[in-house]
């Protein structure tokens, strides 16, 4: 994840992205911590990526407002992070990641710190947002159910050293709704991925 984002250099091998020009990858990232700047309003936080690129104030505020609407936080445009709940802060973080309409969005266990109800709400929200944005999303999670619910493809990785052990396709059509979680199709998929995960956890060094 960090290598794709350009934060760490690969020790061997290479990373290739379709449509990337040379070294400069247009990638956005959402961390488990929303990482909002507490002295900035929601609007200013979301506009940050564009501000770092020296986009004009009018343009970036318009883009930020659109992103904030997209994640369903229109009324909170002028709020400060300390006034928001955990779920709302995560939505702001997602809006910030999407403001530049990146072709690739990295999400590193973004819902891990949220309660179960908020987590499921945001999973639904993410699918809704994705149906509009249609970027590629690389999503890291420890929850098999979350992985199956959200993805088109799942890569199961081993603990250190992290290698791809298995790749699953999830042939369930979008849009996906909450009802999906209780269907036999879903359970079968979850079972298959879980088996692979447990098999590959056993072989590696303990966390």
């Amino acid at each position, binding site marked *: 994840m960090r290598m794709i*984002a350009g934060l760490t250099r690969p020790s061997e091998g290479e990373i290739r992205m379709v449509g990337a020009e040379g070294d400069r990858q247009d990638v956005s990232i959402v961390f488990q911590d929303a*990482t909002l700047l507490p*002295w900035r309003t929601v609007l200013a936080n979301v506009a*940050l*990526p564009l501000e*770092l*690129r020296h986009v004009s104030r009018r343009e970036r505020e318009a883009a930020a407002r659109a992103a904030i609407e997209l994640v369903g936080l229109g009324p909170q445009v002028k709020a400060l992070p300390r*006034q928001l709940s955990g779920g709302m802060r995560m939505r702001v973080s997602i809006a910030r990641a999407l403001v530049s309409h990146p072709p690739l969005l990295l999400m590193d266990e973004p819902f891990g710190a949220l309660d179960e109800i908020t987590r499921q709400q945001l999973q639904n929200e993410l699918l809704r947002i994705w149906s509009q944005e249609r970027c590629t999303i690389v999503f890291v999670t420890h929850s098999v159910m979350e992985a199956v619910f959200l993805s088109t493809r799942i890569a199961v990785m081993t603990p250190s050293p992290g290698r791809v052990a298995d790749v699953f396709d999830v042939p369930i059509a979008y849009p996906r709704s909450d009802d999906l979680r209780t269907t036999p199709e879903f359970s079968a998929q979850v079972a298959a991925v879980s088996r692979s995960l447990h098999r590959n956890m056993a072989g590696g060094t303990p966390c």
Partner: protein
Amino acid sequence: MPTTQARRRRPRGAAWIRAWWPSVWPPTLAFVVAILAWQFLPGPMGLPVYILPTPSAIWATAVDHGPEFVSAIVLTSVTSFAGFAISAVLGVLGALVMAGWKPLERTLYPYAIILSTVPIIAIAPLVVIWFGTGTLSILVITFIVGFFPIVANTLVGLQSASSTSVDLFRVYHASKLQVMLKLRFPTSLPFIMAALKVTATLAVIGTIVGEYVAGTGGGNGGLGYIVIVASNRLETAYVFAAAIAAALLGILFFALASLLSMRVLGSWHESAMKAEQ
């Protein structure tokens, strides 16, 4: 679910008095009792006025020395404020420069720490030797008192941005200058404000210590000068007057620094918001 506003509306009018009264009357009563005791006990106890002057004697002396006393207060205030302001500005700038260039920081940071702990009492005479008697030395001493703590604290603040935040900026290809101005500097503001509050009172002390040592260089003296001269002449009431004025000045500086801190941090930082209640 959206959370409610963290700031409560302060109760106004009668409700406000009722809310504050329980925490206000005990210290006020203690203060009144202490003042009365101080006024009426020394006489019958046979304490001469040059050992323990009564509040009325102190007030009378201050009024007697009127213009001289006031100009001393003004001089000390202006000098300590100027020294403090310069040390604050240069301290923050110095820290920004040091943080921007690792080799410089690694070389100078240990000295900043050491020099911020050396007692000013020991350095002051050296400063007078180098800069002569008079206001310049006093300014330099006040500056030294504030400069090193502010540099040290600002540096810590600049380094306290979370690594996730720094990663975020790097993913969006931010330049080092952008990271410094838009992330590290705002993150360091709570540290800077805390250092300013401490340094504000230290600056007053620094100025007065400077006035002890540096004299006046021919002009009018400040509060420190009054303390030295009046105590030599056993004009204890005047010493008290100067000391009380100095203490009040220190408190005023601290209050101003606190106000600044609340303005800068009020809307977003925990420390400033708690102060509201």
